[in-house]
């Protein structure tokens, strides 16, 4: 990407955006397309998926056959650069030594952040998800409704390209006509599961994922996305014409050199840069937000990681989009006489109400899938179908014993053999070796499936982060210390997930193999995974209608500092089972429109 050095940073930006992932990308995109001058600061290195993505490399061409290692927690070819639950030189700490009370914090230090690696699941929150407290008395209502956000969901989906169907299901919203791309046909294992899941009452529909199954129409979409802005339309049309449709090979987690999937680096940043309104600095580790005499944000201080030098940047507006917890950390580290407890923290709620997604998983072997004729199941590099939460009525009637729902992500099939291929078969084969082992490997290949639950967490007082009073990272910046707690709602929900999976596997005539050993759970007996393991960090600076009970208003604008906005997951007032990225982008777009309107009014 065309990046600039700290020496080239100008002095008259409209907006500084900290972070370049889903939130930072969307914010910079919206602002620059409307003419605002933006400086984006990314803590990681420059990264270009078009040049760097291993598209057709096989696992046999990777060290250790591509196995996951502490350096690459999702395997060698995963796109993540300088990231994981541990980042060298950038520690975080825990309040408790009990794994059940700990949060594991995923970070990726690279341009585009985790959008390079993410699963591309793009599910809308539904109407219930924005008003959970009104519905069941728990958690917090968001200060806007689904209907207010829906136009932004449409725009984001058109911009990034999302495949899926409109199924008209409860609290699982349809998109407007012409917005979604056609979903790919379900794979054999997905179709077989669907047939049997129906018998136990679990629906299966096309999942929504940010992958182009056909090329975007540059003659139609730009006008819908940027009505009345001819220049933006032209730039977006050009950017869309650079994106190819999926060619149904290679896993999306590696990134996508042909730009068929959404990554900030292939979808948001190229048109934003093409406006000429975006300056981008990589290796810029922001330490704090600075204030002027009037208590307004006037810029940031960042460490240029290439020299270790401290630099300043100034703008009329500061947007933090650094990932939920990193944004919280920045606020807490921005202390001043006016905000001794951290910036925008008059409510005392910065760092409170942090959330992840409830995770539980089970793997199984399905005899019906043994010995299928070889056929290509790579598909769209991820799931084609899923099960949206289906027990709203039973839950509202109090029949389930926990308050919120989950969706099921599942799959299996004949993916590219990697580390573990043909391994562990001795339980099925009585320990075959030689030619019999080869025969067995062919027979069992493609007969293994996994089922993962992804459930809503209700914010609670035991889940928070704060500054560690002692520990600093290698740049000398105080680090976060986490506390975590799953409530009975989440624990019971995870158990419900597992019993559902067992029922499904039984209906398929399969054999349960066990919980996924790669997913860390809070202890050996528990079903639920550790906090942070699903990498859906949100909350920590929740939005609300009351300045005493929230950190930002409905526009992601901090109550305390009107020209300071938080457009990542930090202002999420809840964390529905739907994967948060799509909602982060829709909310960021809406917030960016607010910034533009306020700048036009001369508020900043």
């Amino acid at each position: 990407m065309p990046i600039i050095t700290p020496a080239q940073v100008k002095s008259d930006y409209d907006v500084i955006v900290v972070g370049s992932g889903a939130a930072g990308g969307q914010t910079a995109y919206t602002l620059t397309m409307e003419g605002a001058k933006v400086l984006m600061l990314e803590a990681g290195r420059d990264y270009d998926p078009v040049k760097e993505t291993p598209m057709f490399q096989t696992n046999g061409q990777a060290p250790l056959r591509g196995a996951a290692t502490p350096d690459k927690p999702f395997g060698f070819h995963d796109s993540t650069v300088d990231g994981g639950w541990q980042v060298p030189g950038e520690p975080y700490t825990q309040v408790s030594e009990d794994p059940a009370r700990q949060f594991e914090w995923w970070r990726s230090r690279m341009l585009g952040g985790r959008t390079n690696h993410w699963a591309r699941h793009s599910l809308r929150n539904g109407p219930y998800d924005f008003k959970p407290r009104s519905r069941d008395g728990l958690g917090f209502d968001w200060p806007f409704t689904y209907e207010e956000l829906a136009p932004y969901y449409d725009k984001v989906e058109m911009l990034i390209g999302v495949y899926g169907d409109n199924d008209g299901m409860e609290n699982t919203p349809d998109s407007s006509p012409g917005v979604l791309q056609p979903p790919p046909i379900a794979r054999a294992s997905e179709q077989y599961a669907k047939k049997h899941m129906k018998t136990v009452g679990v629906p299966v529909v096309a999942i929504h994922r940010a992958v182009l199954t056909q090329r975007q129409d540059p003659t139609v979409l730009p006008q819908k996305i940027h009505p009345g802005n001819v220049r933006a339309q032209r730039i977006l049309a050009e950017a869309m014409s650079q994106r190819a449709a999926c060619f149904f090979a290679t896993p999306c987690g590696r990134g996508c050199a042909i730009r068929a999937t959404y990554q900030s680096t292939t979808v948001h940043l190229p048109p934003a840069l093409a406006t000429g309104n975006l300056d981008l600095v990589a290796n810029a580790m922001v330490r704090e937000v600075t204030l002027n005499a009037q208590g307004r944000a006037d810029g940031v201080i960042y460490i240029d990681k290439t020299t270790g030098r401290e630099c300043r940047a100034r703008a009329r507006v500061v947007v933090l989009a650094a990932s939920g917890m990193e944004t919280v950390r920045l606020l807490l580290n921005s202390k001043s006489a006016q905000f001794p407890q951290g910036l925008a923290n008059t409510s005392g709620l910065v760092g409170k109400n942090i959330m992840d997604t409830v995770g539980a998983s089970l793997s199984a072997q399905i005899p019906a899938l043994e010995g299928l004729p070889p056929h290509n199941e790579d598909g769209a590099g991820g799931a084609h179908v899923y099960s949206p939460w289906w027990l709203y009525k039973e839950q509202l009637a109090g029949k389930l014993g926990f308050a919120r729902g989950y969706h099921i992500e599942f799959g299996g099939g004949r993916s590219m053999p990697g580390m573990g291929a043909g391994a562990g078969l001795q339980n099925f084969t009585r320990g075959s070796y030689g030619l019999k082992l080869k025969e067995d490997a062919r027979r069992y290949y493609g007969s293994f499936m996994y089922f993962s639950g992804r459930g809503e967490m209700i914010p609670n007082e035991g889940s928070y982060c704060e500054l560690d009073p002692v520990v600093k990272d290698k740049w000398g910046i105080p680090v976060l210390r986490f506390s975590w707690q799953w409530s009975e709602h989440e624990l019971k929900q995870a158990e419900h997930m597992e019993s559902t999976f067992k029922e499904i596997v039984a209906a398929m005539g399969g054999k349960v193999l066990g919980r996924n050993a790669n997913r860390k759970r809070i202890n050996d007996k528990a079903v639920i995974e550790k906090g942070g393991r699903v990498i859906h960090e949100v909350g920590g600076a929740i939005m609300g209608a009351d300045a005493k009970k929230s950190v930002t208003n409905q526009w992601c604008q901090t109550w305390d500092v009107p020209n300071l906005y938080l457009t990542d997951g930090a202002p999420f007032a809840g964390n529905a089972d739907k994967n948060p990225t799509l909602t982060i982008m829709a909310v960021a777009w809406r917030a960016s429109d607010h910034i533009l309107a306020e700048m036009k009014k001369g508020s900043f």
Partner: protein
Amino acid sequence: MNRDYPRLDRRTAIKWMLTASAAVAITERQMFAAAQQAAAPATKGYGTDALLNKEYQPGDFWPLTMTDAQHRTAAALCAAIIPAEGSVPSAADLHVHDFIDEWISSPYPDQQGDRAIVLGGLGWINEETRRRFGKDFADLDEKQVKAVCDDLCHAPDAKPEHAEGAKFFAKFRDLTTSGFFTTPEGMKDIGYVGNLPLAEFKGPPPEVLAKLGLA
């Protein structure tokens, strides 16, 4: 006592237990010796920002550490676990033992755990075949290889004196299948036909749907 075995009288049971503990002791000694004998493993992995769109070979990131003798035994075991079949080469032909060397020479914790099992087992299996047949595993004839592998191939069925050997065999077999089925020849052999750009994804072919009762 394993339920697959006939009941033993007390004296026999004690004898077997003694044999079993002796076998364990030998294995541990072997592991220790092997670990000392092999060069110290690398302390650094490939890091958090390795070049990804490149083809790598074992040894590119950290030195391989097996001795020639260990290599020879590993290759023979690879060939026994995945032999040649028609035009498809064996795991040894495809140098899967080099991958196993890469695996056990790598600095990461899981692989370091496997290092002790694999190097210990490679030493143990030669001791076992010398005792039984007077020669190293790599020099056994087909029948002798089968006799040894049959004793080790299924841990729940293994005799107590083979329990450690069976654990090693299971680990080595998993590494061999992983190494083999990730080669182009192995991917083809297992029936993986993807990794090709397609203009269209047509879903499962009719014969697959028919077999699953979904047609």
